Structure formats: structure tokens, C-alpha cells
């Protein structure tokens, strides 16, 4: 067992890397592969995740579709990326016609402070996005294996 106690004075708030509004190339490429270069628009889906995360091992995340959309605009899939994780893919979810209200809630791992991005693919061929930049604080006394 390696257990470490990080005492006060150590870096306990993982600050996000400096951003110029640009998406990390790996995530940008994954989104490009998904959309085939189609424009990403803000709206239709909503990402909910706490702005200040106490422990990155399990963070509640919800992607929802707040307003009713027509059958032609139906959300077919939702894809979530965490830019600051070693592997930015989080989840890809696909919704069949019997899925009443496309969307999902789960708990995710976040390695550090970062931006989380959700992308939805709709039946009308459009792509929609929402993102949240958040802070992950680190526990002072940790007992890790």
C-alpha cells in the first residue's frame, strides 16, 4: 500500500491548463470523426456536472434534452469527452425509438480540473454541444492502493 498524506502547502487544487478556447487536438479529432466536419451548434442538449468537484473518482453527470424536439430532430446519440483525462472518451450512448427522453445520468472519473464536452447527434443530421469547465479539488489525506 502506498499511502500518502499531502500536508497543507502541497498543491491541493489542480488548476486547469491555460486555455485559449481551443479544444484539445485528440478530442477535436474524435468530434471531427463523429460529425464528419458538420457544424457543432450550442443548444438542444444540456450538460449538468458540478463546477467544483470534491473527489474526481465519482462525479455525477447528466446529459439531458430540455426542450421537446420533433421526430425528425430526434437525438440519436450522445457522446461525452473529458479533455483532461488520460483517455478523453467517457461514454457513447445510443437511443432507440422506444427511448422516451434521450439523455442519461451516470458517475464519471475526472483526473484533474478540465473541460467536459457533450455532443449529440440528431436524426436531421445536425450536431449539438454543451460543455462545462470545472475544478477538481484533491483530498488531503488519501489512502490509495
Amino acid at each position, binding site marked *: 500500500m502506498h499511502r500518502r498524506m499531502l500536508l497543507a502547502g502541497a498543491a491541493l487544487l489542480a488548476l486547469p491548463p491555460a486555455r485559449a478556447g481551443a479544444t484539445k487536438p485528440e478530442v477535436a479529432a474524435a468530434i471531427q470523426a463523429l460529425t464528419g466536419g458538420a457544424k457543432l451548434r450550442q443548444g438542444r442538449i444540456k450538460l449538468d456536472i458540478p463546477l467544483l468537484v470534491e473527489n474526481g473518482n465519482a462525479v455525477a453527470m447528466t446529459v439531458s434534452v430540455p426542450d421537446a424536439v420533433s421526430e425528425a430532430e430526434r437525438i440519436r446519440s450522445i457522446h461525452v469527452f473529458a479533455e483532461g483525462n488520460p483517455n478523453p472518451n467517457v461514454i457513447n450512448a445510443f*437511443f432507440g425509438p422506444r427511448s422516451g427522453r434521450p439523455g442519461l445520468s451516470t458517475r464519471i*472519473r475526472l483526473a484533474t480540473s478540465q473541460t467536459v464536452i457533450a455532443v449529440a447527434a440528431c436524426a436531421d443530421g445536425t450536431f449539438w454541444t454543451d460543455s462545462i469547465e470545472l475544478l477538481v479539488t484533491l483530498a488531503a489525506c488519501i489512502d490509495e492502493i
Partner: protein
Amino acid sequence: MARPLINAPKSVRRGEVFDIRILIAHPMESGQRRDDVGKPIPREIINRFVCTYGGEEVFRAEFFPAIAANPFLTFSVSAVESGVIVMTWTDDLGASQFESIEITVT
């Protein structure tokens, strides 16, 4: 291994949209950790989850190591007809588990 916990209504009205919640006991070993002698612990996660309703796929997800240990998932289903809802998940070793619930549509 503990059984998964599933929460869904037993009976719903036709056309109603209802939520299914599932909590699955699984360590979701990310592949990023090391053991006490510094050896990487191999990745071992549930990587796929599928839910069918009356044989038709309603929800499917690909999980990555960023899904937290003991995965928790909520998604919704539209009540069409009385029938069986089956949830199946598969891990990195190729092992599948499933649970089913019956739903009565009135």
C-alpha cells in the same frame, strides 16, 4: 459478487416515459493504476451496456475507463406495451451478465 440494484416502476400508463436506474457492482479497473510494487494493474471494465424492451433495443452505451467504479446509470424508456426489459452488460474479458424486469403497461 453483489447483484445489481435496479429501480423502475412495475406498472406504467401507455405512452408514459419512465426512468430506469441501475447500479452494478464492478471495480471498473481503469488500467491507469499501479499495484504496491509499481506494476500496472490491467484494465478491466464493463465496456458495453444494452437495454432491450420487448426485444427491441432502446438504449445502448459504450463505457470507457472514465465511468466510475460500481457504475450507476439512469436512462428513460417510453411505455409501449407490457413486456420484458432486459439489460445486458459485457466486460473486457468478454463475460456478459444480464438482468430482466417485467413492466405492465395499462
